[in-house]
């Protein structure tokens, strides 16, 4: 297998590349991103691109990769303006699929990391979203709109290229100490917001399960759309109780306005789509991916418990993850210098 990973500098891209490097049958791992990688990598070749992946077609032609893992979809709208969001998600995916679908393209598999955000969170929602269900309310936020647009491209691409296995994974909210999402950030604060009188059912997925789920699609030929979320759901009040945080009630009306001071004080930065979740919650049905053979290591409750334990550990010993700085000369030396003796066998 020759694999290309987008978003190499994101947490997901880095972890997927690490996992790919472990596999002896993966000959080449190419990673692209706009920033330097933040995870130590053994043999992944890093190429700096612009955010919309415009040189991807050239990279695919030159490297003859057969598998593309697209982890670079922004699902956290606090990270990017709606303009960059559009650039990265919509234009980036368009270029990526164009590169993958070019005539005589060697690509046979595309795995994408999308989000449960495409379902939204509305009052008329079913309690468990299956992959074939549409959202019940309009997509009002830029991130939701861009993800819907991306999924539309992916559907068209899969229709036009039946010889390519396209797996689209929609993830529930991710919890883990290593990953920064609006929810993990809020749960690190001493007080956590809630909407007065609402206690929605929320579902999470553990960061390790996310990587395992992506790897499972890479390792197996299971084209299709899959929800990935841990079993079960918990009320928000209980999530906060397990993590051991006090809740601060925001008014049920003008909620986003009332949350603005906290946003300005950088206490919590919960975007409107996260606020909708705190009102109505969302659970996605994970049975289809389980039927495809995937096994979760965590349930929603144990995901939260593991997060709480890791937070307590980090609170005592500090941030334990060693800091890594990418230096091109060093990485190039180890990969390409004739002085380095590679592959001992």
């Amino acid at each position, binding site marked *: 297998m020759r694999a290309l990973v987008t978003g190499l500098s994101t947490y997901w891209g880095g972890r997927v590349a690490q996992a790919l490097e472990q596999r002896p049958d993966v000959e080449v791992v190419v990673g692209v991103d706009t920033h330097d990688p933040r995870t130590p990598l053994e043999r992944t070749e890093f190429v700096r691109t612009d955010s919309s992946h415009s040189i991807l077609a050239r990279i695919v032609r030159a490297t003859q990769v057969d598998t593309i893992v697209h982890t670079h979809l922004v699902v956290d709208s606090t990270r990017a303006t709606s303009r960059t969001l559009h650039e990265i998600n919509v234009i980036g995916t368009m270029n990526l699929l164009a590169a993958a679908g070019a005539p005589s393209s060697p690509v046979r598999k595309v795995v994408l990391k999308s989000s449960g955000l495409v379902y939204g969170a509305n009052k008329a929602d079913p309690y468990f979203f299956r992959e074939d269900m549409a959202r019940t309310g309009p997509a009002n936020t830029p991130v939701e709109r861009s993800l819907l647009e991306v999924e539309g491209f992916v559907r068209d691409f899969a229709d036009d290229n039946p010889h390519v296995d396209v797996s689209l994974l929609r993830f529930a909210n991710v919890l883990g100490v290593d990953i920064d999402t609006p929810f993990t950030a809020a749960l690190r604060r001493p007080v956590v917001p809630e909407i007065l009188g609402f206690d929605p059912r929320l579902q999470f997925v553990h960061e390790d399960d996310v990587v395992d789920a992506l790897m499972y699609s890479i390792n197996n030929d299971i084209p299709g759309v899959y929800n990935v979320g841990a079993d079960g759901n*918990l009320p928000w009040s*209980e999530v906060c109780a397990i993590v051991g945080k006090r809740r601060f009630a925001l008014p049920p009306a003008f909620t986003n306005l009332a949350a603005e001071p906290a946003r300005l004080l950088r206490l919590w930065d919960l975007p409107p789509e996260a606020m909708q979740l705190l009102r109505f919650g969302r659970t996605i049905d994970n049975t289809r991916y389980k039927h495809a053979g995937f096994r979760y290591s965590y349930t929603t409750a144990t995901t939260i418990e593991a997060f709480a334990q890791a937070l307590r550990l980090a609170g005592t010993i500090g941030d334990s993850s060693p800091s890594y700085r990418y230096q091109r000369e060093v990485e190039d030396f180890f990969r390409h210098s004739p002085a380095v003796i590679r592959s001992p066998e």
Partner: protein
Amino acid sequence: MADGPERATERALEIAAATHPDLDLTEIDPGIGRELVPLARLPEPAPPEARRSDVDQWGRSEHFRALTRRAFDPIYKHWFRVEWEGFEHLPEEGGALLVANHAGAIPPDAPSIMHGIEKDLGRPVYGLAEHLFRTLPVVGTLWSRSGGVTAHPDNAYRLLHDEERLVLVFPEGTKGTGKLYTDRYRLRRFGRGGFVDIAMRAGVPVIPIAVMGAEETMPILFKSPRLAKMLNIPYFPVTANMLAFGPAGLVAYLPAKFRIRVLPPVYFDVAPNQERYSRSRVMEESERIRRMVQDALYDMLRKRRSVWFG
């Protein structure tokens, strides 16, 4: 660190040589343990589930339900004095869709039916209702904890088919509860027959239930469409209770006598899990069930001597 596994293997070989002198251990490479050390970080085992509440994935809490049952039981027994007929038609196992008429500005028929079945049959009932509840702060959460579920076809299907539950639905919806006192016991349209479609899909029978008494507990005298629109609710009623008791009339029910008649189950002779069912068949069955409930109500009203004493 590097020679750790090798040392361990050597040590294991020494022990093996001492305890099993008959084994030939010379062939074993002392470096064998090296492969056992994974390169990536060790995955941490998932901690055990440590729940802090008993809220299930539908949002129900048995603890909270026990509390509400205890609070509602005296009202059920002494205020509404609920009496059942045809209770034996309720199945002791398997899914079934209970379909009842709906009345009263804030309808007391749902809790009465649910409470009676849970108390005497010992099976939980899932009450489907308008998603309006989900948008109400506090009320919506309590409603959900006490067993309310949004009336979405997929929710009903999951409960009936996958979990084989008893599910209670009021096909008239707010058209039933929002009707004036002068229209009492005249059933409204049963939606678009969606409930028949779901029962067919899930392969469960429909059990029609006629409720007498709910109409008189909170009769609507007038409605204000303008206020309803302003508050974004289906109807804004002015009830007899409000005129009599003021604001307390919002929660004070009149003590009408309740009679609940369970009719024989209606089975549909169709294969479950079909892509779609004949629209005309669905509408026909829906109308037939509406007729059954309506006729049962007329029959019960004929026998009723007093609104308050039955």
